[in-house]
């Protein structure tokens, strides 16, 4: 009694409870009397919290005032954002001279522009771009931030940075417009596309050298006034400490991890000892050691820049955590990979650099980003030893005579700022993970 048709019966639409909003509500929120009660109570709690926050933080809040008393005159219970607004320059730039703030902005924009090609899929030579950021950017930025006289080394690195940046930008344009890399494009342009490797290389070197000389002459005329580090502060200082800390602890961590896995006993013991010692003490102890105890070991009258002490402490501390992350990544690589590398004749550094690390680093991304976020938040500890980083500045608002006692609003503002920074980092890391593991999806 089977009914056979040649026509496929059309799909029935999904039941109403699966597609409509009402259906979803019924299924998930109001499925029983108990669940309905829970839903209503939760909605009420959310309403109470949100309305409280909105009334305090926006409806009753004061945004324009000269001092805290004026906020009170406006509303006794609302937030007083005027104090935070008046202190915005301090919060972001610290005590940096106000007429020189453009240098910090410029340094930040430079970094964004430098890294921009890394996000564009058409641009070639990403590894070189990444390396140039790490090698050259700190010097150019460092000169922009501190200013003053350049020593010969600084002049050299700044010139290198300008050269690298110009090449990077032209490379990006060529990549976007012609979809090729800069060197190939230049060869085509000069009609040398078919010349031998050696000729091509010589032509490129000559071009870079010309650019370098031009850049050297150009930077020699630069003259920005010196800003001592004690004027640095706010979010800027936090990012400088965290940035240098991250950029330096990464390579140091890789070496420590390799050292810990090394077959040479001395290297292994030293690495392990270093990692275990620094990992077993809290960061604040390391900071106090660096700033209070370290000068006592030094010869009479030897005065060390406190910022440098702090940065060294942060690097050493964080390198240990980085080392353990890297070690975990290394251990995830199957033995076959090492053996495979050996069979094609690679030595230790070849194996590590070409086969193992590229695979291992991919596994480490979530942990590395977690570590970076942790470090960024940990750097606020430096406010305890008297540096005016972002937390130090936020807390100082309540001590400024016009705003005495204003401490909740600045801390809430700081929390929002940190959330934005850390959340975007974690989102970006997720994106990076997906992109890098594209090859894993079969």
């Amino acid at each position, binding site marked *: 009694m089977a009914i056979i048709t040649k026509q496929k019966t059309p799909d029935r639409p999904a039941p109403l409870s699966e597609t409509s909003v009402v259906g979803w509500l019924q299924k998930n929120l109001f499925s029983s009397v108990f669940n309905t009660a829970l839903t209503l109570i939760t909605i009420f709690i959310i309403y109470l919290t949100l309305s409280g926050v909105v009334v305090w933080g926006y409806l009753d809040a004061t945004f324009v005032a000269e001092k805290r008393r004026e906020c009170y005159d406006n509303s006794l219970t609302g937030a007083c954002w005027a104090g935070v607004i008046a202190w915005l320059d301090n919060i972001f730039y610290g005590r940096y001279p106000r007429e020189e703030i453009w240098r910090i902005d410029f340094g930040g924009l430079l970094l964004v522009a430098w890294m921009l090609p890394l996000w564009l899929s058409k641009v070639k030579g990403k590894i070189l771009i990444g390396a140039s950021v790490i090698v050259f950017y700190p010097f150019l930025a460092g000169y922009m931030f501190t200013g003053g006289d350049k020593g010969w080394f600084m002049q050299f690195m700044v010139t290198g940075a300008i050269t690298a940046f110009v090449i990077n930008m032209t490379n990006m344009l060529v990549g976007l417009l012609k979809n090729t890399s800069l060197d190939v494009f230049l060869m085509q342009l000069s009609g040398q596309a078919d010349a031998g490797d050696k000729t091509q290389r010589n032509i490129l070197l000559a071009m870079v050298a010309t650019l370098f000389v031009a850049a050297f002459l150009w930077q020699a005329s630069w003259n920005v006034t010196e800003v001592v580090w004690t004027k640095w502060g706010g979010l800027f200082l936090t990012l400088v400490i965290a940035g240098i800390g991250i950029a330096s602890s990464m390579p140091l961590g890789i070496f420590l991890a390799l050292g810990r896995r090394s077959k040479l006993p001395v290297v292994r013991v030293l690495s392990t000892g270093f990692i275990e010692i620094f990992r077993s003490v809290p960061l604040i102890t390391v900071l106090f050691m660096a700033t209070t105890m370290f000068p006592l070991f030094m010869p*009479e009258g030897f005065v060390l820049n406190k910022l440098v002490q702090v940065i060294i402490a942060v690097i050493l501390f964080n390198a240990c955590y980085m080392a353990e992350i890297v070690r975990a990544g290394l251990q995830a690589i199957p033995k076959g990979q090492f053996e495979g590398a050996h069979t094609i004749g690679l030595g230790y550094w070849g194996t590590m650099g070409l086969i193992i690390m590229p695979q291992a680093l991919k596994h480490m991304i979530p942990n590395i980003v977690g570590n970076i976020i942790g470090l960024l938040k940990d750097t606020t500890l430096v406010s305890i030893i008297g540096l005016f980083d972002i937390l130090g500045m936020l807390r100082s608002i309540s001590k400024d005579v016009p705003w005495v006692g204003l401490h909740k609003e600045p801390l809430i503002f700081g929390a929002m700022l940190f959330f934005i920074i850390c959340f975007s980092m974690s989102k970006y890391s997720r994106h990076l993970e997906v992109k890098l593991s594209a090859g894993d999806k079969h």
Partner: protein
Amino acid sequence: MKLKSTLMTMTATVAILFSGATFATAETTLETVKARGNLRCQVGSPSPGFYNLDSAGAWYGIDVAICEAVAAAVFGDKTKLEIQSVSSQQRFTALANGDSDLLSRTATWTMSRDTQLGLDFLQPNFYDGQGFIVRKDSGITSALQLKGAKVCVTTGTTTELNLTDFSRLNELNISNVTFEDFNVRDDTYLNGGCDAVTADKSALAGNKANFPIPGDHLILPETLSKEPLAPAVRHGDNQWADIVRWSVYALINAEELGITQANVDDMRSTSKDPNVLRMLGAEGDLNTGLGLDKDWAYNIIKAVGNYGEIYEAYIGGGEQAIGISRAGSLNALWTDGGLMYSPPMR
């Protein structure tokens, strides 16, 4: 051992590369300061009225003014000054190890500190004393009525110890509620978490002015402790101690003689008073013992004004001041019944 020394060498090398560190040979503090070209003056983490940052990132306050006065005396320029903000745990170490030249922060001059820590305290620039603040509607008008009360206090200072002593002496059975941060302490008090707050009276007055309704609160008349707040220098360099001590005396003396920031030029050229002329360097050689220029006191007054002007600007009734009246207090001139007294400058 190897690890440690390698580490130390490494860190030191890196540090020297970074900072271009400087070695100074053993010299007097004055020589060191002059050679460096600026004065390193230590303050604490910001405290309203004494040393705090404004929204443009500049330091101001009565203790900062002392730093500026010493910088003006040494260099004739109050901007040749590096203000160091150091946490209170590190304050005396930072002075002892030569990081700071001068400590000008609300540090109470006590015997143990003066004799045991390798410091010398000099002429106080502010006399404070610990007191209580209560809500007016509590009906309390004297500290002796605080029987069994909960009192909010910041921890880690002599304030807490003084409170315990006071409670024991008068059998008040006060329970201490301790806080790290004075903002949280005040919030707790305002929300009814304790019956009273105890702190230095200057701080109480400054904070009270910023309570939602200042009129609802009352500072009790009792003073629990003596808090002479004085600048301090390393023990053993008497010339440097003299410079700082006489810089503060110059401020007080100038007020007594009626020399102000505005009239100091006039006074130097037209005054007939030998005391004025001697102090401002128009006559005599008062500067020789200090190793400073003839103009040292003139430079101080020109840069920061006299003591009364500084007090008005940061503590008294000025725009940036915390609003504590000077009349009748210990901080008035000795001629007005206070303790501000300078030995004769001759």
